[in-house]
């Protein structure tokens, strides 16, 4: 089966999710990936949305972080202060998903402003839950399409901290969690180098070349010593994802 780059990204993000994971899910690609994992290899995965829904099993993808579908299918729904206090800060979330307008080589993210903060060229939506998701979850996956505008050599604003300035900076800031362990793009998967924490390509999606990746990244991207080929989507993965998205499209159009 043919697949799009975006489908590959979602499927690649779904694969490493485990049945035992408790995931803090954002809207968009993370939500698709988490629910794809739930509908394929990780049926008991626990999905949490910051609107307070715990253990939700939506039949369609929510448009917003608080669609009724999330509450209707949840084990329980808690107030938002409790969500951030007992569940996120409480250290109950094993895996958080983030995206952003811009990312740098140490997986720091910007979703706040392009240009100066006080006179922005583009005013982005802001951090929302991201600053504390980045520090409180056991580890972080990031999904973003690879582009020079998104993968930049220096952020205008650090909305949420990945590996800071690299190396052991995260620990020096007092964080005990792993931070970003994977960046899943539409062209490849990157992981932080074990020492420097600089993002490094470890897996390349089918049909993509190293040159395309280098061109699409705003900094001189490094490749790991051993780079593997991302397995192409299986028929089950693709069918499940497309069915989910078709159900979603029909429901939101109604």
């Amino acid at each position, binding site marked *: 089966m043919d697949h799009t780059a975006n489908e590959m990204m979602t499927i690649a993000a779904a694969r490493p999710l485990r049945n035992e994971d408790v995931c803090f899910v954002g809207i968009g690609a993370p939500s698709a990936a988490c629910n794809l994992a739930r509908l394929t290899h990780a049926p008991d995965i626990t999905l949490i949305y910051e609107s307070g829904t715990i253990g939700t099993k939506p039949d369609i993808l929510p448009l*917003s972080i608080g669609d009724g579908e999330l509450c209707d299918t949840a084990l329980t729904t808690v107030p*938002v202060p409790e969500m951030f206090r007992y569940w996120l800060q409480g250290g109950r979330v094993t895996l958080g998903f983030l995206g952003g307008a811009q990312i740098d080589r140490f997986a720091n993210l910007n979703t*706040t402003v392009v240009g100066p903060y006080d006179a922005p060229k583009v005013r982005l939506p*802001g951090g929302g839950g991201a600053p504390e998701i980045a520090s409180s979850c056991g580890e972080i996956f990031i999904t973003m399409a690879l582009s020079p505008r998104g993968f930049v050599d220096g952020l205008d604003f650090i*909305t949420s901290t990945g590996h800071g300035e690299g190396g052991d*900076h995260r620990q020096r800031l007092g964080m005990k969690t792993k931070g970003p362990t994977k960046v899943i793009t539409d062209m490849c998967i990157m992981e932080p180098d074990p020492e420097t924490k600089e993002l490094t390509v470890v897996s390349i999606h089918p049909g993509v070349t190293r040159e395309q990746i280098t061109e699409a990244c705003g900094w001189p991207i490094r490749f790991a010593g051993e780079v593997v080929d991302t397995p192409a989507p299986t028929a089950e993965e693709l069918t499940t994802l497309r069915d989910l998205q078709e159900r979603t499209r029909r429901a939101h159009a109604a």
Partner: protein
Amino acid sequence: MARLTSLAEAIEENVRDGDSVTMEGFTHLIPFAAGHEVIRQQRKHLTLYRMTPDLIYDQMIGMGCADKLVFSWGGNPGVGSLHRLRDAVERGWPHQLEIEEHSHAAMANAYDAGAANLPFAMFRGYIGADLAKVNPNIRQITCPFTGETLAAVPAIRPDVAIIHALKADKKGNVLLEGIVGVQKEAVLAAKRSVVTVEEIVEDLGAVSPNAIILPTWTVTAIAEVPGGAHPSYAHGYYKRDNAYYKAWDPIARERDTFLAWMKDNVLDKGPDAYARYARGA
């Protein structure tokens, strides 16, 4: 004891020019009808608090109600930007909007601290994040036992909180269910509160012993406005109108299409216009 009244009177009596106002609702139960009434009554110089400004604040900001916005995520969920918010921030239209920006965790804790009558909230947050550099209301506090440094923000204590709830009984006790967000905290943190509800019933009926209920003596005014959360939704009554959220994007992109829409759909209408979105309508 809450006063059962009309929406127009509730806003007239409780929202004043220059007030700090929070209108909460985390996707669910956003008080659109009440926001439109504030616009119709031409309130000015408001300081608006809301974690996720959403379309209702885009509309209020575009109509010039607000001098300042305190928020943590300002987008059209799943769709894109809030164009009126951006126009105000980036180009000062209809006038300059001051912003004070936080994270969700900060604001959720700040509402909690407000409800708890504390002067500030503390949490483990903003580590390595630039927001702490541009917002002087993000400070630090040191644990007197471990020496750990934590983030501190002021409690939110607005003049008035406005929320939409499912139902109230005739005494004015208010029931919230489903995604309850920070609305209980917002009401308890505020000096005054206005609650719109889907329906006013004789009594709240068989609810869980731990149901989320605001007793009548914690609420100032209640107005029955069926459908009043539309295009947000009311658990068990009607669903979120996702198509409206998508349709808002092109309307809000330009000032003239925005103003024309507001005239037709808000200024020339009243709370009754929401009835068609209510259950069974």
